C-alpha cells in the first residue's frame, strides 16, 4: 500500500481534483483510500501568474479539468532553505527559474511534484517541468492514466476490494 505513496501517480485532472486530504495528516492525500503524495500530469498551460522571486502559479488543462500548480522561486531568499547546502540550493533555484521560463501559455508541459492543498483546493507543488513537443504525449498520458487507474491504482483501492 505504501508502494504508491512515493510514486508520482499519473492522474487525470478530474481524478486528481477529487483527491481528499487525509484527515489525520493534512500533508497527504488519498484516492479511494490509497494514500498518495506525488503526482504527474501532462497538459496545456492555460493560466500563468508570476510573482518574481516568490512563485509562479499556473494551471494545467489536460482535457478533463484544470490542475492548479505552484512553482516556488524563493529558494535563495526563504529561510526554509537556509540550512541546506548552498550550492544545492543555488542549483535548485537555477532550475526553478529555468522551469518558470519554460512555462508559457499554450505549451504542453509534463509536471511532477507533491500533492498539496491551498485554500481548500488540491494542487501540485512542482518539482520539475518538461516541455513535450510530441503531440502524442498527451494521448499517451491519458492512456497511461486510464491503464494505471484500472490495472494499478485499483489494486490498492480499499473500497474497491
Amino acid at each position, binding site marked *: 500500500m505504501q508502494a504508491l505513496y512515493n510514486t508520482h501517480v499519473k492522474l487525470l485532472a478530474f481524478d486528481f481534483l477529487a483527491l481528499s486530504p487525509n484527515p489525520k495528516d493534512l500533508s497527504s492525500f488519498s484516492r479511494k483510500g490509497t494514500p498518495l503524495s506525488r503526482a504527474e500530469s501532462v497538459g496545456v498551460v492555460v493560466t500563468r501568474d508570476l510573482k518574481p522571486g516568490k512563485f509562479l502559479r499556473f494551471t494545467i488543462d489536460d482535457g478533463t479539468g484544470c490542475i492548479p500548480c505552484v512553482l516556488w522561486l524563493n529558494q535563495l531568499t526563504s529561510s526554509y532553505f537556509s540550512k541546506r547546502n548552498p550550492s544545492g540550493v543555488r542549483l535548485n533555484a537555477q532550475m526553478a527559474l529555468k522551469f518558470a521560463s519554460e512555462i508559457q501559455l499554450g505549451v504542453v508541459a509534463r509536471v511532477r511534484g507533491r500533492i498539496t492543498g491551498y485554500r481548500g483546493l488540491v494542487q501540485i507543488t512542482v518539482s*520539475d517541468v*518538461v516541455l513535450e513537443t510530441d503531440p502524442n504525449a498527451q494521448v499517451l498520458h491519458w492512456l497511461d492514466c486510464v491503464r*494505471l487507474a484500472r490495472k494499478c491504482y485499483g489494486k490498492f483501492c480499499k473500497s474497491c476490494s
Partner: protein
Amino acid sequence: MEEEKTIVLTISDLVQRARPLTAASSLVPSRPISILKTHKNPDDYHRQKHSFRICQDPNAKTLKPLNQPTLLTGTLTLPSFSVRDSPIKCNCFQFSNDSATICCDVLDFDSKMIDRKIQIRAWNFFPLKCGSRGVNSGFLEIISWDFFEACGENVCYLSDFSSFCLTLGACDAKDGSKTSGLIFGVIELISPVTIVPCATGETGSRNVSGFLVNVLVCQCKFCSSKFLVSELKDLTEENVKYHCFSKKVIVYFCGLTSLWYPVVSRFIGSIVLLTGLKRKLVFISNEESQLMHVTTDEVSLHIAKLFKGRGLIHDTHIRGKGECGSYTGVITGFYMQGMVVELDEDVVLLLTDQHLTVPHSVRVGAIVTLKNVHFVDPKFRWGKMLILGACCITSVYVESFSPLETGCHLKLHSQSLLQKFIDSLSFAARLWALLVVSCFRKKFAGILSEKEILGSKHQGVLLEFCKHNLCCGAKEAHYGHLRLVLPIANLINYCEASWKNILDDQENFSDFLGCTTSRKPLSCGGRSYMQSIIRVLRTEEICVIVLGTLKMSSSSGRLQLVDATGGVDIMLDLPATWDFDRIFEVAKDFRLIMEGMPPKLVDLDSTIYRPLSCRSIFSNVLPLTRMKISTYLYHCKTDEDSRSRSLFFDWEGNSQELDSGKFHLLMLTHKFPVQKKFRKDLGKRSNMFAQAIVLPLDLLVAGKYGDAVMNTVTSGHLMDSLEIFTRHEKHHKRSKIEQTSVEASAYGLNDGGNGLSGQFSASCSSYRNSCTEHTCVSNHPLELSCLIASKGVNCYCMGVLHCTNENAKISCGCKLPRKKVLLEFGPDNFCKYEVLKIGRCYLVKHQEDDMLCSIKENYQVSRAKVYISSETHIRSLAFSSIESLQSSDVSDVFPFHNSQISSDEVISSGNGIDSKIYSDVSVFVPYSALNLLENVTKIWDGSPFEEEPDVHDHVGPVINASMQSSRTSCSDYPLPEGNLITLRGLVVALHDCSGDAFPAQPKPIIGEGYLPMFLEGNGGVCVHVLVDNRTVRIFCDLSKQTYPVGLGRDAYATFHRILVLSGQNKYMMMPVSFITIDDTSLMNGNLAYESNYAYGTVGLISVPTPNAIATTTLISDALQLSEPKPMQIRCRVVAVYILVVEKARTTAVFQSSEPSIPSTFRIPFAGFVMDDGSSSCCVWGDSERAAAFLGIEPKEYLLKDSAETFGRSKASKGQPYRSNISHLNQILEKHGRVVTIGGSLMDPKASSWLEEHLTELDVAVPPLLNIWATSVSHTDMLAEARDIIQELNIITADI
C-alpha cells in the same frame, strides 16, 4: 645623367639572337608607361575586381631584361601585307631599319610617327617564325619612343579639329566640300581585313583587300550642310552633345587604305571625319545590295581631338544573351591553338572566327580591350562562366604589354571537318565542343590515336558525339543541357571544389548541417565520434558524362572507372556478360557520392581547390593535394537498365546469344574476399574463390537437339511462337501422354534419338500435380519447356529445363541435396569474379568431362573445385512467367521491358534487386512453374546457418558454435564464441576503432565481451548496423579485409559469414567474411532516414538482447517477477541514486588522447531512481547508459568543436563551461525526459557485484527493485499509445 653607355641595336641583331628580351630600363617612374583607360565592363558580370590579377601560372617567367639602356632606331610603317614580296602577311605595323623589317605594336600611337624615323627607348622583343617558309623574324612591342629628329610642320588642314590625320593624297578638306564625300560620325565597329576577288574588265581579275567600318552619323541639318567642315573647326565638347550619332553608314576601306586597318581599329568609339569618299552600291549577294562609302585616292581620315571614346555609349543592359559590348581584362591563358583565350581566369574569349586576326602582342599577361564582343552566359549546369564570343566585328587591342615571357599565339586555321562544324555552332556550343575535344584528348591519350578521337578516320569518337547533340542542342537558345564529358581527374577535382563550396558558404553550411549532418556525434564505447557529412550529386544534375573503362584498382582492389587521367571508385551491378574492354559510359541514373568529415578551417584553403573551370579542362594543371573525402559513383537501379546503353555511342549490341546445348544452373552462395596481402604485390596475385551450389536443373537450349528445325523466333513472330507454346500447354491439359510426340514435333523439339522427346507432357502434368498437391515429385525426371530470351538479342529460343536428379524430389518445402562447388578464378579473371553476385542464379555451359556433372550428391562432405577460365561464359539468369509476356505488348522489342515492376518497387526491394531487368538471360516458364522454380532457388538463399558447419572447416580454428551469449566467460582473454552468420541491415554509422577501443570496457561489466587478442595492433572500423530495429556493431579490421565501394552510412549492406562475438550484438569480420552493398538510400539524393534512425539508435545506443525484445511492462508488474528476464519499462528519472565519477586517465582504456573524448571524467556506473507512475525502481547502468539517462548528448562538444573548426564563436548557443563540476551540474538538469529502458532484474551474481562496489563507496543498495539497464532509448509515443489502446481493449473485452 646617363652613367651607363647606351647601346644601339639593330633589328637583325635581335632576330639573330632569337630570344625574348625586354629593354625597359630606360623607363623612369616620372613617365608612365601607358595610362589605362578605365573601361567599364558590364556590371552584370561582377567585373568589379578591377585589380588586374597577374597570371598565376607558376611557370611563367618574366622577360629577361638587358642590362643596359638599349635603343632601337628605325621607321614605323603601315602593314605591308598587300605588298607581294613582303614576307610578313599580317595586319601589324612594321618597324624597319636598314637591316630588317619586323612586325610591331605601339602603346602610345601617334599618327605622325608613321613613316618617320623614331628611336625606341623601351621595348619587348619576341622571336617569331614568319610565313609558310618559316623565315626567322620577330615581334617588337614598343613601350616608349621618341622622334629621332624634330617633327616637321603640321600639314593637316583641320589641325584645330583633329588630333590625327591620315591621308592618301593631300589633306585638303575644304569648306563647302560636297557633303556626299564627307562622313562625320563615330566609328562603331570594324571588320577584319578580307580579300575579295574582283573582276576589272580588261586586266582580268585581281584581288582587292579591304575592311568595312560601321560609322554612326548624325542626321541633323548641320551635319548635312556644306559648312560642316568649317564648323568643325570650332567644335567643342558642348556642341557635340547636340549631335545624335545614330544612323549607320558603311565605309569600305579598300585598296591602299586597307593598310590603315591597325590605325582605324584603334579608334573605335572615336569621332572621325572622313573625306574623299564615293558612294557605291555594292552587291553582297545575288539579290541584295548595300549602299557603301568607298574610299578614293583622295581619302583622308581625321580623328577628333576631343571626345575620344565618347561617341559610343554601350549602355545596353548585358544579360549574357549574345549582346555586344566591350571588355578589358588580363589574359591568363591560351588554349586550343589560341582558339580559346582565358581572361581574368574565369572569362573565356572564343577566337574561333576564321577571319579575325589578333595582334601578336596578345599574350598571356597582357591587358587587352575587346570591342564589340558578344557576351554569352552559357548557363552550363556544370560551371558558371562568361563567354566572350569574337566574330567578324570584334576588334582586339592591347592596352598594356605583358611583362611575362609568354609566346605569341598565331592562330592556325584548319579547314578540317571538325573546325567547320565548330564554326557552325553558337558560342556556347562552340566552347562546349572545344571542351569536349580537349576532354577526349585527355581521356584517351595513349589509348586512341588523335585521328580516332577527333575524326577523319571512321568519323571518330568526337564527331559521333557531337553529331548526336547537334540535332538537339545547337539550334536552341539555351545550352544548359549540353553535357560535358569530363576526364576523371577533372571529375574528382570538380567533386572537391563542390565539396569545398558547400562548406565554404557559411549560410549554406549551417543549412547543410541542418539537413544532413546535424547528427550528434556518435557515442560508442564511451567515446564520441564525429560523424561524416555526405553529399550526393546526380550526374544528370551536373550535366556531366564520364567515360572510361572498368578496372580493378591495384591498390585498393576495388572496381574503378579509369581513363588516362585517373580513376574513380564505382559501385554498380554489372551484367555478367560485360566486356571489360568496352568503354563504359556514366550518364543516366548515376550519383556522385562524396563523404568526408566536417573540415577544419585549414582544409578550406580556397586557393587550392578551384571550381570546374575551362582552365582545368584545357590545361593539364590540377591541384596536387587531394582532399580527404571519399568519392564514388553509384549506379541507381531503375526500371530501365541503362548500364550498357549509351547516350551517343551506337554500340552494336553486346549481345551474348545463348548457343544451343546444355547449361548448368549455379546459385552463388558466397564470395571469398580478395586477400589484401596479395593485392599489394601484383606479382603475387592470388586466385579468387566463390562458392556456389549446383542446382539440380539443367537448361537445354534447343538447337543442338533439333538442328534441322528453325528454333529461334524473332520478336515479330513472338506472338506466333507464343501461340504455339500456349496451345501446346493448353492442349496438354486435356491430352494424354501418348500424344506428346506429335505435339513435340510440331515445334521441332522432337527429334528422334535425342532425349528431349516424349517426356515433356508427362513432366508438365506431373509437375502440375506437384504444385497443386504440395507433394514431392517422384518417379519422373522433371522437364519443363520454356522460352529463353538473352539480353540484347532480339529473339527468343526454345529450351527445356531438365531436372538432373533421377530421383528428384522437388516440391515446395522438400529438401534437396546440396551439390556445392568452389569456383576458382585466376588473377586475370577478376572481372568474372567481380560481376558475380551472391544469391543469384548463373548459367554455365556444359562441357565434356564437366566437373559440375560429376559432383557427388553428398550432403556434407563433397566439395568440388571448378576453375573459371576466361573462356568460361557465365550469364546471370532470372525466371519470369510466360504469362507476363503474353499480357504485355509483344511488339515491344526488348523483352525485359515487359517485366511489370515499377521503379518504386525496385528501389524498395532491397536485396531483391530486380533480377529480371538486370539479368542476362530470362527464362520464361508458365506461371505455375515459376513458384516451384523460385522455391528451388530459395531453398539455399538466405539460409546461411545451415552452411556453417561446413564453413568452419575452412576457417581453421575451432569455434564454439554457440549463439548464446555466455556471460560466464568473463575470463581475462576469452576467445570469440559464436557462429558465422549473415546479417543484413542499414548501416547507420561508422567510426574509427583502434583495436583496444572497440567493445572494450574498463571492467568486466555484465553483458560485455572482449575483443579477441589476435585483432590487436591494427586500426579498425566499427560499423553500426540497424537490423530489425536494433543496432548491432560489426568490427572490421582495415588491414585485413576488403571493403566494397559504397560501404558507408545509409547503405543497405549484407555482411556474409561474420563471427558472432560472445558479447551482445557484436560481430566481427573474418577472413572469409564478405560484404555486399545491396542498395543505398543516397540514391535519391535525400537522406530520409536521418531522423528515423540516427537519433533513436545511434545517439542513444539501443542494444536490446538479440533473442527477445520484451514488451513494455509496468514497474509494479515487474515487482512480481521472480527471476531475471528481459523487460522494457517506460519511465522517467526521479533522482540520481549514485553517480560514480572517476578521472578518465586512471583507466587504461581511456588513456588514448582521442580528441573526441568529451571530458576528463568518466562514469563507470550509476544508479537512478526511476518512476513510471505505478511504482519506483532503481536502474543501474554503465557509462553509456548513464550518459543516456542523464541526457548527455555531446552537443556541447560539437558546438565547441565546430566553433573551433569554423573559426567563429558559437558561445551564444552553447554555454561555455567553466569547470567539470558546473558541467556536471548542467548535465544533471537534463534528466527529465521519458525514456524506454531495456534491461532485466539483476541476477544474484550481478547483485553481489553491485553490493560489493557500493560497499566500497560506503553506499547501501537501495531498498527498491534493482534493474540492470542494457539499453536506453527514446520513447515512440505513438507506438506506445497504440499498444496501450490495444491492451485496454483486451481488458475491456474481458470485462
